[in-house]
């Protein structure tokens, strides 16, 4: 059995984790990955979610869930 992993050893292990480096997402940034474009996409998705929720007919007396299990 091996000795305790030292802090230096741990850092070296992490740094040497070639897999982590190799598996990072593609470095080349597509136009759709631009922060402003992504923010717009996120807001558009929220709007789509709101619209889907608005299509539900909610009976008047329905209160928001205050107990978070059925």
């Amino acid at each position, binding site marked *: 059995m091996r000795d305790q992993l030292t802090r230096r050893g741990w850092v070296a292990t992490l740094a040497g984790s070639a897999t982590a480096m190799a598996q990072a997402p593609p470095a080349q940034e597509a136009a759709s990955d631009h922060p402003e474009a992504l923010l717009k996409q996120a807001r558009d998705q929220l709007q789509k979610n709101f619209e889907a929720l608005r299509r539900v007919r909610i009976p008047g007396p329905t209160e928001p869930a205050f107990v978070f299990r*059925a």
Partner: protein
Amino acid sequence: MDAGVFFLTIGELNAKLKAKEFSCVELTKAFSDRLEKLGPRLNALALPLREDALRQARKVDEDLKRERYRGPLQGIPFGAKDLLAYAGHPTTWGAKPYAGQVFDKNAGVISRLLKVGAVLTGKLSMVELAGGGGYRYAAASMTGPGLNPWDRGCWSGGSSSGSGSAVAAGLVTFALGSETSGSIITPSAYCGVTGLRPTYGLVSRAGAMALSWTMDKIGPMCRSAEDCGLVLQAISGKDNDDPASAGKSYYYFPQYARKMTDLRVGYAPADFEHWADESCRPALREALRVLKEIGLQWKEVALPDMPYGPATSTIISAEGSAAFEEMIESGKVDDLADKKQIAGLKAGLDIPAREYFRAMRVRSLVQAMFREMFVEVDLLLTPARMNVASKVNDPLDGGRRPAEGKSGKGLRDLIPAGNLAGLPALSLPCGFADGLPAGIALVTRAFNENTILAVGREFQNRTDWHRRMPKL
């Protein structure tokens, strides 16, 4: 130490400790060696805790020597998702902005496990902030993408990525994960381990990162349904430090489970024959066959057409962005690894109250729907995921979906729907597709964990998928 030891269940390992086949210190050293050697290769290890673990192991050995037995978890090595506080050590939540964060108190669940003699050998990696803003790549984590022990070119699932791969690879005997919507079930299914999402409020969230105050649950990821029951018994119960605590305890009593022939199962054939990826269908069919042999009563059901996903997303976005408001407003959010997540968290700050409350009113309807459904059936069965793990570099938001056609929706939205209703779920490995694990999931009414665990146990008595070991 024989390699098989790393894949024993809690009961088997505890019996060997009691029989003094090895000491807890020897066991802890062996597991720590394996975790520190293989954990980084899978990007599963956030923080090794060898010294603390050995201190705890020495106490366990002392107790065992004096025949002070503290239950089946005594001496068992485990890991905890890095969103659970462990006093005096970094708790990063998988995210660079919190890399230096240290708490002075343990999470409630960790304290409970240490009290019964379990040995915490490491903190396990996770998707940053449990993916609350939505994320596009598996690499959305400070420790890199979670890699699947069955194929390191594939993802381990999220957000409890390290918990899934560490259990599957035999780096710990069990792990704690958390689920807001899918974060225990998904990595359990992708890594081929047995994962339990408990009823909302059954397990304390004190000392856990808050993503969604109304949806977060902490649960075990293990080798078997029986192990999930044993861990749940130790971590459940009232906690005054968690305002959502239901104040209920849970006892794992498989001997008092209802007869299998009395249980009514709801399922949708379309889930297995239409929605599931073609490659998964043989394994899923075989799981159905085994379950039918058990003698359960079967009934075809489907979820009514409701916006489960949009309701879940709206609630998580609103609550998550509020929980991380300070980080978002300070600009530190830009240090996160995944750009989609950054955008999602920023956008979530602007959700109007009326949209949030509409989602919460829809949530009330979903809960009422489940109450009606569970008059007709005792549990629901679906594929845990409709696919196996994706390639690690593939975007996660571009999945193929078959056309709806005549098959109907079945239960395919059971992950968001079940989470909206705070219902317990159990993921069980049921075979392989393209060399990767496939799984089924069982869902039942609140606080009825023993029913799904009993069915899971019976399924695992008749199969050995949960005993398979990946080659590492």
